[in-house]
């Protein structure tokens, strides 16, 4: 007798709840049956524990790709592990981050905004001041150096808002590598300035017209390119998703955000912060800030997803808050999907958060309770965009505005001597047209 019939007879499930119940049980049993690091509790040492050598963060992550990519992914993993401990590679990376990107990025106490909110002190990690205007370049610098070491002559990437595309085109231009960027047709229309920037930098921008014509489809198309051109091409994934080793590799390149912030806050405030906040689309800026703090259990961690028109509207991009586990783009993680397992279209005012999946490490941090994930809707993000601009003279990216909006909720609930670090992951220049259009202004 099949398992579900037994469960039905035993009254554990009924016709109404069967699907959800069976699904939950399947994952609960997976979580229960595995040893380290899946059943780790908050407070245990987390840094360096995940992923395992097959790329698993608990039940998440892994390598879910067609066979042709398995050997290239192993080669990438070997190269990455080798160079991560190679003094020459690290020296070159550090020099580029310092002299080309402009690191370390400042940690800035936003006194005006802190007074305005009337609660915890808010520090902004200024990733918006990096070369190219966002955190994305931390990763593209690292992966491009790897590509050079591996002798690859062609770089490809997917992009949503265009920030990762620009950051990739930038490093490709500098290293003299051919560069092709895949971008959904919908995103091309709403991020015209970044499209032009990429072209100026010498990249070919390919419009993707399949599926929902956004970031997820651009990722599909980049994967198809990679599988076809594996011999000479390096695929720079822009977020902490995709098949292993990408989630771990991108995290390690982005973790410089958190390492700097951890040191800076101790220099400036003499102690660790009470809370961290970052926006989560795929989740690379968030994991970059969070990771070095994972073992500081007194620091609470808050990831902010895009609630779009609201979680109840169905028009959002919040898989951790309102999705469920599944497999897409090479990894198991929380997804926005329907009852048939088809990926559903997402909505967010910010193109960079408009993605139906999320990095597997975030899925794991949610399940083990180390991080909390919340969602901020379009209107709240836009309000924060305006507030920060007017009060601090800093125009934030719409993505980062989601993290700022959550700070406006969290800070007033905290004492004045407490500290929040918000990752200001990018600057808002690219979003000026979007914001103006929403307000009926022609720029």
């Amino acid at each position: 007798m099949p398992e579900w019939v037994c469960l039905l007879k035993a009254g554990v499930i009924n016709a109404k709840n069967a699907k959800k119940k069976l699904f939950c049980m399947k994952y609960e049993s997976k979580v229960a049956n595995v040893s380290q690091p899946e059943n780790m509790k908050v407070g245990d040492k987390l840094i360096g524990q995940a992923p395992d050598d097959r790329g698993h963060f608990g039940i998440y992550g892994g390598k879910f790709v067609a066979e042709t990519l398995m050997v290239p992914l192993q080669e990438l993993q070997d190269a990455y592990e080798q160079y991560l401990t190679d003094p020459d590679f690290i020296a070159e990376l550090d020099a580029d981050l310092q002299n080309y990107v402009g690191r370390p990025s400042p940690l800035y106490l936003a006194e005006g905004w802190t007074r305005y909110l009337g609660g915890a002190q808010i520090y902004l990690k200024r990733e918006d001041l990096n070369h190219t205007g966002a955190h994305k370049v931390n990763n593209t610098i690292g992966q491009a150096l790897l590509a050079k070491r591996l002798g690859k002559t062609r770089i490809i990437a997917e992009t949503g808002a265009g920030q990762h595309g620009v950051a990739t085109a930038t490093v490709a231009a500098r290293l003299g590598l051919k560069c092709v960027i895949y971008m959904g047709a919908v995103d091309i229309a709403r991020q015209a300035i970044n499209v032009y920037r990429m072209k100026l930098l010498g990249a070919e921008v390919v419009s993707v017209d399949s599926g929902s014509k956004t970031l997820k489809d651009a990722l599909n198309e980049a994967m198809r390119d990679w599988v076809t051109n594996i011999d000479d091409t390096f695929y720079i994934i822009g977020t902490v998703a995709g098949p292993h080793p990408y989630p771990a590799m991108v995290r390690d390149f982005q973790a410089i955000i958190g390492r700097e912030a951890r040191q800076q806050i101790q220099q400036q405030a003499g102690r660790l912060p009470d809370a961290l906040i970052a926006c989560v689309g795929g989740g690379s800026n968030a994991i970059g800030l969070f990771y070095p703090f994972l073992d500081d259990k007194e620091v609470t961690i808050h990831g902010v997803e895009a609630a779009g028109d609201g979680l109840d509207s169905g028009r959002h991009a919040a898989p951790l808050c309102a999705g469920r586990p599944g497999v897409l783009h090479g990894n198991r993680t929380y997804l926005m999907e329907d009852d048939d397992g088809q990926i559903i279209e997402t909505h967010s005012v910010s193109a960079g958060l408009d993605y139906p999946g999320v990095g597997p490490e975030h899925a794991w941090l949610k399940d083990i309770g180390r991080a909390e994930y919340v969602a901020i809707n379009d209107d709240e993000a836009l309000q924060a965009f305006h507030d920060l601009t007017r009060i601090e003279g800093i125009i934030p990216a719409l993505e980062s505005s989601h993290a700022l909006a959550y700070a406006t909720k969290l800070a007033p609930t905290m004492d004045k001597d407490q500290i929040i670090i918000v990752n200001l992951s990018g600057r808002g220049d690219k979003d000026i047209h979007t914001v103006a259009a929403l307000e009926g202004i022609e720029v």
Partner: protein
Amino acid sequence: MSRIKNCFDKLKTKNRKALIPYVTAGDPDPGITVPLMHAMVSAGADIIELGVPFSDPMADGPVIQRAAERALAHHVSLRDVLAMVAEFRQQDNATPVVLMGYLNPVEVMGYAVFAEAAIQAGVDGVLTVDLPPEEADELVAALKSQQLDPIFLLAPTSDDERIKLICAAASGYVYYVAVKGVTGAGNLDVRAVADKLAQIRKHTDLPVGVGFGIKDAESAAAIAAVADAVVAGSALVQKIEQAAAQHDRIKTEIAGLLMQMRAGMDV
């Protein structure tokens, strides 16, 4: 004995190679699929690979991507595909049917529930293209417990170690992807395929099917000379697209191409 093993055993006694057409279930509309499956068998198909439409077909080229989009416009789900196989089985209890698709619809249904439903519908094998053996233990166990054959891909990039790993997990047959690329890619190098098949056969007695880049009688014949099975997908799906939802024309065009391939292979 599984229908797939039975099929290959029978073909072997006749010294023939298997012709395996692929179509996406529900393309261009759900009504065509079962009649088309019967038409393909009449035209010389030995095994049918039935595509389960998925919203994000990462390993497919534009032709099969569009097929999935047409099917999904009719909301064709994994359960609908299983119902089509059950309907096919009412008239054909001999031709093996292999479901080919992506993991997520199976993942959402649940492996055990899926395997149970698939065997009851009359499915024989399951190929999830984005599931390498490293991640497949649970699904393989669920499939094997229902006597379903897990079919796996081999690629030009697979080394000896991976060939061993894949063949150990597979049953029924293994599917060699003849070119680095997505479905519908061109430039089949028959000599390179022959060399790789020799390498694969050092590690397994399973029949080896070859697909990607087979589009006419000539390429089918060339591959049949070195492989145990010839898989044709995009060339057929392209015929469906061109026939613009006219069911009779779809059946005639597909049957015509399959008969040409069959004739080329049987020379």
